[in-house]
């Protein structure tokens, strides 16, 4: 039976905006005066919802607003949200570096976070001295560090330099040593903030690998904060979606990620170009684009095992022209995954409004985010009538329950086709 190791209850955190110091002594005195008379803090009432895109009137803002959730032992919980949604504030409170304005957090066991890699490293001290100092800052006793010392040095691979001041280390060695200390901490609860994790791809991978080990092999609890929906989906069973200092949704990781994709404006699943703003020339112009499922319903998130339709509507204005609709699909790295063009229909040259759909088969796209560019072109002579760049942006997610292999990590690759394999036994 699992037990609750973290219980967050009505957690709120208020920040003052602008310059701290000027004018705050007046507020402090005013605050004190209200409290002396047994009244509520006047500045707490005027706090606004934290949305950095809107310009607010208040000097005070709620970075966290009445957050409630619980984490069970051994759970791998993902926390997603846009910049400024309150993720980092939540982590700061959990790691006790700042205190909440209201509410409380109850924790069982030791908390450590991989966001504090290298904290307290002193450049003048040797690697050996820094291992002890850093370990102690992170909450280990000298005895514990001594027991793990060889392991840490081995993991970091800096044995030769262990008595050299760390200021002489290459930055890679520095980070490896720092990470090695943090990785050997063995906390009951591990917090990983991917945004803050410095280092190259290899190091990030090491962080993620360590995280999986900690959770699955050792049964510890992990909180994983990330922008990378795919990483959250593959690593976590449950997730919390934070928005403007509140919890927008929590529960099954896939559900939460779907809602996140739907809600956050980066995803464009439906776009209409009003009359007068349409891209195009005297031959053809774009009207509308949608992401649809096989029944032509608009969808916001596609699954890897689902047929995905990209539908767009355009007008042909000139008799006898042959504009061919075509689509360009890119991934977030900017790679052109594929280009495809409609060529089956002979009626393309007649003026009118057309709706065309391109079907992407199931099990073709890997999970991740995709950008779609839409165009109509004439090939002889070659001319592009319009090209709507980033007309649609959508996420493809994978239901981890349905994966047909034991590997649980992220599947690499630009595409992920389902291929036939044949194996025969030879002897």
């Amino acid at each position, binding site marked *: 039976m699992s037990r609750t190791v973290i219980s967050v209850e009505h957690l709120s955190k208020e920040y003052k905006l602008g310059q701290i110091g000027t004018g705050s002594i007046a507020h402090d005195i005013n605050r004190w005066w209200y409290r002396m008379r047994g009244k509520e803090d006047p500045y707490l009432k005027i706090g606004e919802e934290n949305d950095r895109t809107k310009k607010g009137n208040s000097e005070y803002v709620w970075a966290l607003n009445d957050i409630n959730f619980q984490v069970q032992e051994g759970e791998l919980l993902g926390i997603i949200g846009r910049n400024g949604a309150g993720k980092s504030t939540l982590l700061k409170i959990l*790691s006790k*570096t700042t205190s909440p*304005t209201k509410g409380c957090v109850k924790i*069982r066991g030791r908390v450590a976070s991989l966001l504090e890699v290298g904290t307290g490293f002193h450049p003048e*001290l040797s690697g050996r001295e820094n291992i002890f100092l850093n370990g102690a*800052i992170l909450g280990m006793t000298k005895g514990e560090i001594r027991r793990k010392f060889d392991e840490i040095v081995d993991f970091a691979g800096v044995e030769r330099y262990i008595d050299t001041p760390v200021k002489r280390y290459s930055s890679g060695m520095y980070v490896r040593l720092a990470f090695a200390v943090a990785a050997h901490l063995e906390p009951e609860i591990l917090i990983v903030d991917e945004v803050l994790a410095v280092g190259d791809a290899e190091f990030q991978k090491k962080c993620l690998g360590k995280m999986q080990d900690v959770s699955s092999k050792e049964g510890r609890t992990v909180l994983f904060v990330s922008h990378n929906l795919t990483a959250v989906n593959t690593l976590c069973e449950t997730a919390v979606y934070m928005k403007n200092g509140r919890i927008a949704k929590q529960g099954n990781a896939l559900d939460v990620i779907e809602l996140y994709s739907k809600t956050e404006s980066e995803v464009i699943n439906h776009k209409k170009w009003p009359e007068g703003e349409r891209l195009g020339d005297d031959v053809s112009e774009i009207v509308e684009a949608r992401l649809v499922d096989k029944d032509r319903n608009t969808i916001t998130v596609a699954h890897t095992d689902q047929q995905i339709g990209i539908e767009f509507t355009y007008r042909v204005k000139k008799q006898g022209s042959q504009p061919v609709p075509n689509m360009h699909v890119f991934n977030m790295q900017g790679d052109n995954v594929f280009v495809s063009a409609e060529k089956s229909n002979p009626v393309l040259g007649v003026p009118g409004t057309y709706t065309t759909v391109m079907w992407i088969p199931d099990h073709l796209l890997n999970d991740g985010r995709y950008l779609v560019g839409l165009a109509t072109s004439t090939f002889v002579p070659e001319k592009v009538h319009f090209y709507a760049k980033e007309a649609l942006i959508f996420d493809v997610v994978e239901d981890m329950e349905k994966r047909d292999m034991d590997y649980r990590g992220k599947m690499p690759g630009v595409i992920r086709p389902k291929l036939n394999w044949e194996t025969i036994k030879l002897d």
Partner: protein
Amino acid sequence: MSETLSHKQEQWDVVIEPKTHLLQLNLKEIWRYRDLLQLFVRRDFVAQYKQTILGPIWHIIQPIFTTLIYLLIFGQIANIPTDGIEPPIVFYMSGITIWNYFAACLTSTSATFTANASIFGKVYFPRMVLPLSVVISNIVRFGIQFLLLLAFMFFYYFKGYPIHVSFAWLFIPVLIIMMAGIGLGLGIIISSLTTKYRDFAVLLTFAIQLGMYATPIVYPSSFLRNTSYKWIIEINPLSSIVECFRYSLFGKGTFTAGDLAYSGIFMLVVLFIGTVIFNKVEKSFMDTV
């Protein structure tokens, strides 16, 4: 089984709440982090003299030169008496030794929050560990300077000057603790205030310079006995500690038991206020620093 389980449900290791109790000293927690305390002390000491030729010898050079300057200016030029303590050089050196300790405790503890904001912002440990480590690492420095003072005293003993070995020497550790207590108390108050208002950091640097002249360091307290400035010495809680320090070493000094009690009470009050403010500030200073 279910009973023990539900009972266990209510046992949390850590509860993070907005408010703390006023006097939550958390000595237990500091004790748990004693290894860190020790490592900070070591770091302070080791890191300071890495890549210097003379290393810890700087601890000796600085008081020697200060003493010589004071001897010249206050002894030779201003002709201020030394309360009959002979030779004058040990009079000045004793004052400098104990004042240095106080000043070092105060200046370094007062920078606790601002200097360590980058660590404090990322990881939790009892914040009090840092000012405590500073006070302790300064004791090491004080020890070195004190040995230097003793060396001078013995040197002049062989030159024919008297030396007063008495039970009063046993009182010296108490005086050091009082100095440390006042330095720590004032230091953490100032460090808490500087998180919001940097003015106090500026104030402190010259307050310490001026404070030395309001304390019987370069003159004996008897020198002011019949002047109208006497009250400055009397309200200064450090005066009786310095005088008592000299009395313990040389058998000459002007103080009463009441003066010492006043200093002791002052220390307790300052430590109390300091702890209260420090506890309040340490929870949220990352938002204001």
